């Protein structure tokens, strides 16, 4: 029963998004970026970004759409490679944050009592440290590199999801369909994993869509602080490079990274809103 309901909800949500032209376009953009990231990961695209392809600091032209950087490297290829970094930062940090958020939130909401109090204390503690301070502290302690960025972003972004999941589980656990499972002898695990969680999974999807754009934006700041990705190009590092370049009039590296980032962050923003409207009418427009 619950399976069937979930399916129809998803189908309906997809339908609603496809009806909205702007949301559909955002979805297409996200898929394209994901494909580019995948191709880069497989080494099929932009693998030769590091070779000096032309003269140094050349302005955009027919051969180099976004010009070359101070080592004569093709800026367009760097932008493409940066897509992989940006998408992976969003993906891996979500893969860290989502299991923590769901499991703590679900356990707290479902069992209540002392477990709930412990979890609430735990996330209150985490959310009390301003995100930027926690982000900086964690990536500073773990050292430079992309793995630290993943972990720092993952560990700073589970709280919001945990709160939402906890609230929803509390609402759902006394509903009729859960009581029915109890009546036919279903245990805690079955109730929680087979029945309650599938019914609140849309929250996770909405959250992940927002998480991606936060992660992509945070990577830029960490790169500026010297705590980000080290040996490969990222949009953050390219924007950071522009500090020196702008004064000499070399704007293309900044422009390339900014535009690439603007499009995907905008797409995630719009998609996040559309998903929220489509999947959770109660939350419509709230908590932006």
């Amino acid at each position: 029963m619950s399976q069937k309901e979930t399916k129809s909800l998803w189908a309906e949500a997809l339908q609603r998004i496809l009806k909205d032209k702007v949301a559909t376009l955002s979805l297409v953009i996200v898929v394209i970026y994901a494909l580019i990231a995948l191709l880069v990961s497989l080494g099929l695209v932009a693998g030769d970004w590091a070779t000096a392809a032309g003269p140094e600091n050349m302005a955009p032209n027919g051969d180099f759409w976004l010009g070359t950087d101070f080592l004569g490297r093709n800026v367009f290829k760097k932008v493409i490679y940066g897509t992989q970094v940006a998408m992976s930062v969003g993906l891996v940090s979500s893969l860290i944050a989502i299991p923590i958020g769901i499991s703590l939130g679900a356990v707290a909401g479902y069992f209540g009592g002392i477990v709930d109090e412990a979890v609430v204390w735990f996330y209150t503690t985490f959310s009390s440290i301003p995100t930027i301070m926690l982000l900086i502290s964690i990536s500073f302690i773990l050292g430079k590199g992309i793995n630290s960025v993943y972990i720092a972003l993952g560990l700073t972004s589970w709280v919001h999801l945990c709160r939402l999941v906890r609230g929803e589980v509390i609402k759902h656990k006394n509903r009729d369909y859960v009581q029915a499972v109890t009546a036919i002898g279903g245990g805690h695990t079955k109730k929680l994993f087979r029945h309650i969680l599938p019914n609140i999974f849309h929250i996770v999807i909405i959250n992940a869509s927002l998480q991606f754009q936060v992660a992509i934006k945070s990577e830029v700041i960490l790169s500026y602080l010297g705590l980000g990705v080290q040996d490969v190009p990222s949009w953050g590092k390219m924007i950071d490079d522009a500090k020196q370049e702008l004064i000499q009039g070399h704007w293309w590296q900044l422009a390339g990274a900014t535009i690439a980032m603007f499009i995907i962050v905008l797409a995630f923003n719009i998609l996040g809103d559309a998903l929220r409207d489509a999947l959770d009418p109660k939350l419509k427009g709230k908590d932006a």
Partner: protein
Amino acid sequence: MQLIQYILRRLLYLIPVIFGVSFVIFILFNVVAGDPTPLLLGKNATASQVEELRHQLGLDRSLAAQYFDIVKSAFTFDFGRSWATKQLISEVIVNRAYPSLTLTVPAFVISTILSILISLVVAYYRGKGLDTFIRVLCISLMSVSSLVYILFFQWFFAFKLGWFEISGYEEGFPNFLAYTMLPGIIWIILSLGPDIRFFRTVILDEIYQDYVRTARAKGLSEITILLKHVLRNALIPVITYVVIQIPFLILGALLLESFFDIPGLGGTILQAINSSDFPVIKAFAILSSIAYIIFNLITDILYAVVDPRVKLN
């Protein structure tokens, strides 16, 4: 009476949270971070030098004692001395707070008022072209990295056009204005997107309530309804949203201060990161958390005082 009980209970709850925050910081800096002595002494230090420094910094003591030191500092605000500059951290913070506040407070006040005004106008024209335009503008503004605004504005308005000082700071009003104006404008632009989106939602949430329909039915004009009824009811979430941001004003504007060379708290944090100055980073993490906890408490109390619907148990 009930309110006082509520406040007391909430105050008591601060204690486990402060213990928790101290624990997170302890785990990060005293357990995971590893030995900082090679950073401070260089590679060629003798074993006895290392031993002496570890003793000086209190790193040879038990972990429990080190944890207790952090908890204690959260209550006494005595964070010891900076490893890099040897200054008392509490003094540094007091000295550096002023430049930060001259930048953040005016920018914060202006951006909040501006956002509320724009949200009211947008709510008045809801569903029309202007509303859509502002919504698209907000979401677009939010999709550009803050670093890009800073780089571009500094390069264009200060370097190219020469309208503002490129960087630096001078104490005293109105001297500091020449230096804080441009970073202040960038702060406002960065805040407008999220602020307007939030205020607009809050106002629109109220606009479809029954009392608004009643007000309309008795013939009040839309503007009177917006200003006298809707705004007053929307004020609770607005105040909450505003108050909870105050701790971040004290924390300063991390990136802005570093780009514009404003000797504030945000710049201090960045220096501390570059010189691996553990005590300073820890002090900022603890202080900003405490500020956040306190302002969070204030908003909850405000909520309880202002809104009779909030139950106190």
